[in-house]
């Protein structure tokens, strides 16, 4: 209490001054963050509608904010005159013939105002007009190849929207096939405890997944480019093959006795023109083709989605694994001589399963 | 008409909480006069005093200090009036959140900005000594008895040696010795030509030092006159208030020699601080002051802490 009263003046001074410092610091930090102290270069443009492009909208170029819309106004011809600024650090990119493009995301993530630099030599003049990509002026510039414009962004978004579920479904199918094969392998090795029927059901699931996938892709087929159409065909092929494979092992009641029966036994299934092996292997080959197609498409996406590549790689690894299993089945230790050594390096995550198979 | 009276009330009416506390009161007080406002409880003595001192604002009528209406004073004139007047509250009304020293020092600090801390300290101690309060000045009012608070309240009014003093029931809650001292002080002030307005129901005090008497009944001034007139008033309602006033036989103490050493001390101008220096010189006029200064010096020597913490927590 005494301390408090004795140093009242100092305490109050500290209290007020520290707050003032905090406030001042906050304002300065805020100003720095909101570019109060930077020079911005002013330009103009015209929109058909200011919807999604009001004052404050960020102008993006390859994922970086290079400026923002500062003012929009409805003019006498019912167009929207807009003023915008490009940050001084990006001003050197604003060459002649630069244009803007308003892109609306198909999955409702709002709009983006993209900046595409022109291929002119000189810098665009301060305060000059930057046309919109879908205006007459903008289209002319694009047709003349005066604009450095990446692959049409709206197509990419559409493609991505189509490819994503596709990849996911393909992945699911692979996993299911892989699991089926593992289970078969375990059954053959006499380790299986679960009923073989569930394995078959899983296989059917895989088929219905593939069906859904096909429907999904078909629905978007019109919008997809030709490569995507090829993909759908491949997927259809997998589906058929898988159906055939499933049909081949649809009679689970007979399978186990046959496995145990020395006469009928596994030899019959596997040596019976390698029906099971060929069936499954066939679908896997198709799947591999699909994945290759998907990879081709995604290659054109310029590595924008590294996750696609990862999924594909994983898919391929799984397929290789499946092939191994099949080979193992074919060369069943009861019959022939084990899984041949692969020369290729296996991903490390596979080593556990490997041990199980050997 | 000559010189304007020191204080004049003209048709003052005051409303307090919906009832008339003071009805059309008019009286005037010449410089050096001592007026006793007498009356029973609730007769409006305090209201009369507060209105005359400019603490309460009259609902109608006017209070004039040296011919100037209190309501129409400039802030400078008002400050001068406050500097020249002191008010002793019935219940002392010390500022509870300040030490006694600060209570006493505030008028000096406010009206005498040129005084240094030593001057303020001296004035405060002299006022405290004058009323006979010689205890710790750094205590809070709450630590004091009602009588002690009353003395300190009186000291606060006297710190700047006012020429116009308002005393609301000055002897209330005082013991006999302290009350006696208060009489002495009033007598001394009279002797120095100070104008005093006292509200009291006590006849004894009036008998000793009143020049004029005003009788208040239910907010109305029923009778105003000199003391000698007051003794002869016959109206039974007025008599009920003034009945115990006795005709003066002996010469009042203040008319000739002063009553007691304190009165002597207060009669000396140098008692109240005009300069920080203790008075020096020869002759009887300086003796009391010099003696007091010695006492004060002793007190100061013993208690060096003068300007301790001044708190008002809120």
């Amino acid at each position: 209490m005494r301390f408090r009263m004795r140093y009242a003046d100092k305490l109050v001074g500290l209290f007020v001054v520290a707050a003032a410092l905090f406030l001042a610091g906050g304002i300065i930090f805020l100003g720095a963050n909101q570019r109060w102290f930077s020079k911005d270069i002013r330009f103009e443009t015209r929109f058909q509608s200011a919807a999604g492009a009001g004052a404050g909208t960020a102008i993006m170029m390859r994922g970086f904010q290079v400026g923002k819309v500062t003012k929009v106004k409805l003019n006498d011809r019912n167009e929207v005159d807009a003023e915008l600024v490009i940050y001084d650090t990006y001003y050197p990119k604003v060459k002649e013939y630069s244009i803007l493009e308003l892109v609306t995301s198909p999955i409702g993530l709002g709009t983006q105002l993209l900046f595409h630099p022109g291929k002119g030599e000189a810098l665009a003049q301060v305060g000059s007009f930057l046309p919109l990509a879908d205006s007459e002026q903008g289209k002319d510039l694009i047709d003349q190849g005066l604009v450095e414009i990446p692959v049409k962004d709206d197509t990419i978004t559409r493609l991505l929207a189509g490819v994503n579920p596709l990849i996911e479904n393909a992945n699911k199918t692979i996993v299911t096939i892989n699991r089926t094969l593992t289970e078969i392998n375990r059954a053959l090795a006499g380790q299986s405890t679960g009923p073989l029927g569930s394995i078959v059901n899983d296989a059917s699931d895989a088929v219905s997944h593939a069906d859904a996938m096909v429907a999904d892709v078909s629905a978007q087929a019109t919008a997809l480019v030709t490569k995507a159409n090829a993909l759908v065909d491949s997927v259809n092929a997998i589906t058929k093959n898988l159906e055939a494979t499933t049909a081949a092992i649809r009679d689970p009641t007979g399978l186990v006795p046959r496995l145990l029966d020395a006469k009928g036994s596994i030899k019959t299934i596997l040596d019976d023109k390698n029906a099971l092996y060929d069936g499954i292997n066939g679908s896997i080959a198709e799947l591999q083709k699909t994945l290759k197609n998907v990879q081709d498409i995604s290659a054109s996406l310029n590595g924008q989605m590294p996750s696609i590549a990862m999924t594909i790689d994983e898919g391929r690894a799984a397929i290789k694994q499946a092939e191994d299993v099949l080979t193992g089945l074919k060369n069943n230790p009861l019959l022939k001589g084990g899984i041949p050594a692969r020369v290729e390096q296996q991903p490390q995550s596979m080593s556990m399963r490997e041990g199980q198979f050997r | 008409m000559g010189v304007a009276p020191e204080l004049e009330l003209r048709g003052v009416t005051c409303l307090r909480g919906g009832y008339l506390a003071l009805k059309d009161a008019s009286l005037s007080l010449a410089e050096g006069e001592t007026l006793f406002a007498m009356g029973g409880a609730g007769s409006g003595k305090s209201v009369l005093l507060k209105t005359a001192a400019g603490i309460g604002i009259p609902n109608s009528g006017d209070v004039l200090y040296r011919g100037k209406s209190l309501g129409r004073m400039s802030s400078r004139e008002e400050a001068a009036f406050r500097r020249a007047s002191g008010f002793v509250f019935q219940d002392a009304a010390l500022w509870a959140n300040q030490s006694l020293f600060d209570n006493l020092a505030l008028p000096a600090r406010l009206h005498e900005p040129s005084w240094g801390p030593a001057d303020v300290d001296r004035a405060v101690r002299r006022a405290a000594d004058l009323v006979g309060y010689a205890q710790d000045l750094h205590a809070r009012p709450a630590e004091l008895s009602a009588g002690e608070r009353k003395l300190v309240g009186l000291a606060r009014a006297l710190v700047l040696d006012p020429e116009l003093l308002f005393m609301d029931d000055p002897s209330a809650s005082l013991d006999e010795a302290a009350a006696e001292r208060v009489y002495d002080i009033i007598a001394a002030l009279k002797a120095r030509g100070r104008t005093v307005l006292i509200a009291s129901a006590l006849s004894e005090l009036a008998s000793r030092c009143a020049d004029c008497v005003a009788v208040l009944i239910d907010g109305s001034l029923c009778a105003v006159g000199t003391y000698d007139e007051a003794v002869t008033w016959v109206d039974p309602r007025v008599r009920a208030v003034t009945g115990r006033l006795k005709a003066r036989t002996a010469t009042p103490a203040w008319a000739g020699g002063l009553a007691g050493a304190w009165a002597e001390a207060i009669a000396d101008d140098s008692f109240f601080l005009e300069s920080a220096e203790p008075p020096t010189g020869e002759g009887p006029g300086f003796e009391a002051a010099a003696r007091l200064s010695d006492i004060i010096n002793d007190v100061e020597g013993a208690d060096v802490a003068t300007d301790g913490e001044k708190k008002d927590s809120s």
Partner: protein
Amino acid sequence: MLSKIGRAAIDGFDEFLYAMGFFARVLRESFLLLRRGQVGRRVLVNQILFTGIDALAIAAAMALAIGAAINLIGSSLLAEFGQGKLMYTILIIVITRELGPLLTAFVVIARSGTAIATELGGMAVGHEIEAYVAVGVNPISYIAAPRFLGVVISMTVLDVYFNVFGLIGSFVVVQLVHPIAFNEYFRNLFAVLTPGDLLSGVGKSLVFGVIISVVSLYRGFAVERSVTEVPVAGIKAVGSGFMLCILADVVMTSVQYLG
């Protein structure tokens, strides 16, 4: 009946006018106090000490708790919807714009509003205010103005601290549960924060400070002679302080979002 309502309306209006006049005098004396300083400076310092510094702990605790709660919601619930960045907007709206000033005001009303009203009430009952007048001290300039300034300054400063603790302190708290990079947090925060938000927060706390101090001073001075009036003054100061602050908040918020 009608005349009763009429009289009540006239009385209410009179009281309102009186309160406005009182407010104007307090404002004028406060400016004078700021200009000449000294007299009442100690009261001002003590007022800030009591209203501001002593209330800092509770304001900081509230700010920390609210900030941490929003941070946790932002990093779990909102992130689930893919709207993790919305957290910063919510932080700013809640701490800087809306709750910060209002909660600080509630703390100040509860602590200092009652204290001022009851203290002044006690002074009025003890004739201390009259004693000030008698000595020549203007009670508005010596009693009201420093308390007014003290509360207004404390309110504003407390709101700044509320922001500091709500925005920075909560970040520290959340580090224990859900670490976010310091840089990322503050870049995102300051990307959402606008000068308008700061202005709104500081403006609101200023207005609340004015309301709280004037209401409690007014209620305190309204006490006349009875000790029983003192707690009533305290209660009234809290009641009308709350009401007026909420009312002012509604008005200011509507002006900001509609205007």
